[in-house]
């Protein structure tokens, strides 16, 4: 069955620390991969996406993710987090040319000043 796994359920960091959130998918074939973020009290919004091409994808607010096909991974990174990055982060994937996204369980990130 198709699935998306996020192994970090809750991450606590101090400001300026580096961040890496894991995401693995179980699809075969060509996939589209996404990271969504939900700030407290706000709707889910797209952070970045990978469809094809350069496996290192840059998103908003200094986030980036790397697609590693051999590892079925799409980990999210940020070199230096800020208090305003406190949010819930969801990895999602879909088969190429479909719009039915499958989401991971989410990672709650708390950043302390």
């Amino acid at each position: 069955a198709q699935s998306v796994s996020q192994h970090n359920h809750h991450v606590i960091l101090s400001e300026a620390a580096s961040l890496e959130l894991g995401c693995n998918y179980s699809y075969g074939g060509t996939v589209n991969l996404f990271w969504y973020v939900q700030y407290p009290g706000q709707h889910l919004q797209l952070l970045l996406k990978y469809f094809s091409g350069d496996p290192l994808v840059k998103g908003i607010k200094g986030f980036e993710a790397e697609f590693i096909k051999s590892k079925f991974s799409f980990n999210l990174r940020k070199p230096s987090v800020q208090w305003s990055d406190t949010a819930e982060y969801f990895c999602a994937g879909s088969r190429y040319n479909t719009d039915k996204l499958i989401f991971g369980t989410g990672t709650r990130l708390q950043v302390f000043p």
Partner: protein
Amino acid sequence: EADIYQTPRYLVIGTGKKITLECSQTMGHDKMYWYQQDPGMELHLIHYSYGVNSTEKGDLSSESTVSRIRTEHFPLTLESARPSHTSQYLCASSGTTGTDTGELFFGEGSRLTVL
């Protein structure tokens, strides 16, 4: 900024009541979706629509029903609510051209509590 709106944001009702969660988008998107999300769990697709008069059930079985009579409107209805329906319901839409392809735009969600 996403232009997709859900009402009500919060709803507390008694068992057996009929409820409708509203979802509207002003982006002209053909595709719309309903996801269900329980705390600490992944979002599960329960309904989707690829256009007017098109509705399909998602991966997670749900007792709710949907309709798509207008492009911009995708309401979800529970005929007789039960405590097991307590959850957050998220509506989303997506475009079919250009950079919108595959990207979902979400509403703020409707948090339903059935007593």
